[in-house]
């Protein structure tokens, strides 16, 4: 595992020194600060809007990191030929893929923690109180982005960063609506769609498992099962994707 952690910490360091991250960090900070703009125009709804806006923004920010950085981390290794000095060392394809995946995940964890901390400070500053229940969103986001990170790594095994980025976004948004997919056949009345819909329903990751924004903002009850499901579903699905990714990588050649 030391090889995996070495690759992960190198990937993390590389991402931290990436200009894109700096731009995203500035953007994230500005957008959270912008929630102030909404406060005066919605008297009586201030708390709800700040919470809703903040929690949603942190999710979008995580999504941007995965799409803009996660889809490039593997491709860059090949494009810049730095992979030559990795694969020729005692490193398996699984070590490499896991290391890159974990490196990006370290980054996501750190950024999510920073953004939630900033968000908490904003709540304290504007609302005078902190809604600790919102931290439930952090738990679900961490597993959501664990899975999305694996999706990005998997897709970037066989596509360019731009294609992988678009596909990752697509998988994310379709996955959010996963539970509506089955209704599609009933609503449209086109029974021929059922094979495709069933395929998409079972194959695409179901990101609605992690969608708890309404629950955390409106303090709706959340079952213990939903916590367990988010944890187990995310890890299991990510593991399968990473194993397939490492198999795909073992077929690769570096000319």
């Amino acid at each position, binding site marked *: 595992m030391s090889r995996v*952690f070495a690759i992960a910490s190198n990937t993390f360091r590389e991402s931290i020194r990436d200009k894109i991250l700096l731009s995203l960090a500035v953007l994230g900070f500005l957008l959270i600060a912008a929630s102030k703009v909404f406060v005066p125009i919605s008297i009586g709804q201030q708390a709800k809007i700040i919470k809703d806006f903040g929690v949603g923004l942190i999710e979008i920010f995580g999504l941007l990191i995965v799409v803009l950085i996660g889809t490039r981390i593997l491709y860059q290794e090949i494009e*810049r030929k730095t992979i030559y*000095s990795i694969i020729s*060392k*005692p490193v398996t394809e699984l070590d490499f893929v896991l290391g890159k995946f974990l490196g990006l995940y370290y980054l996501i964890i750190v950024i999510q923690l920073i953004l939630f901390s900033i968000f908490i400070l904003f709540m304290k500053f504007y609302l005078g109180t902190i809604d600790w229940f919102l931290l439930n969103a952090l738990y679900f986001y961490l597993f959501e982005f664990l899975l999305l990170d694996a999706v990005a790594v998997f897709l970037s095994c066989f596509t360019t960063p731009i294609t992988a980025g678009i596909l990752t976004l697509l998988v994310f948004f379709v996955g959010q609506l996963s539970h509506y997919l089955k209704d599609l056949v009933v609503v449209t009345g086109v029974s021929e769609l059922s094979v495709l819909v069933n395929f998409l329903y079972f194959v695409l990751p179901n990101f609605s498992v992690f969608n708890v924004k309404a629950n955390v903002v409106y303090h709706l009850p959340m079952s213990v099962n939903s916590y367990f499901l988010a944890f187990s579903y995310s890890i299991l699905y990510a593991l399968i994707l990473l194993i397939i990714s490492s198999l795909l990588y073992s077929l690769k*050649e570096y000319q």
Partner: protein
Amino acid sequence: MKVIEIKNLVKIYASPFMRKKSIGLNGLNMEVGEGEIFGLLGPNGAGKTTALKIITYLLKPNGGSVTLFGGVGSLEARKRMGFLPENPTFYRHLTGMELLQFYSRLYGRNPTRKELEEKLKVVGLKDSKDRRISGYSKGMLQRIGLIQTLIGDPDLLVLDEPLSGLDPVGRREMKDLIRKVNMEGKTVLFSSHILSDVEAICNRVGIIVDGKMKKVGYIGEILKSEIRYIDIEFEGMEKIDWLNEYGDLKKEGKVIYLRIKDTEKKDKVLKEISRRGGKIISVVPQRQSLEEHFIRTLNE
């Protein structure tokens, strides 16, 4: 023990969207013994880099076999091998020191900063240890590239054009370092276009042409068997016209130079010079250079 044993290696490059195929290796056979410095020569596109990349697991062969260290598994082989690619590129965001720390960890090692400083000192990069790789010159990249091959204390070094891009001083330092690690018991396989360097440091060379090994041999043997002419230097003779039939003649002051092209007549000429009162100063057989041999092999 044979460190590398390659049998009938075939590599075909095929574009996934076009029917066009090109042959990288076409039945390459090659062996590298323990403790050798083996130089791989060949014109551009002959298959040198392809062979090295297959040995280092970057490419997969379409046929034939590569056996490393008598047949150990790929992970074990990679543990015992260091690779310097052609025109190496490393992580630009890391400093020289961080790069070596990273590569050390891939071997499960955790050397101290001081130990790594010593390694950087060997190639003259101690003062640049905290500079980012993005600021390194080509020569510096080549030097840190060689050090990273040694980071796992491997038994075999595979170096693809290790001397390219280096200035004369850098080339000399690199050659000295290759010789030094070889003296410490490491086997070295390297490719190069710079024939004089290959001639200077290799024990054995192989010439690849069109994906096949065209000639293999010890440098000494290849060059010894190819004496092209003999230069004789002598003095103390006035009448020398009779020597014109044996080769080119030149007189500078009292000293006379004769270049004999028919080397079998050497003894006869030497005997005659002595008999006529000449005093032999030197007899130097002129062998063909590796470059001449190389070009002749290509044309065969």
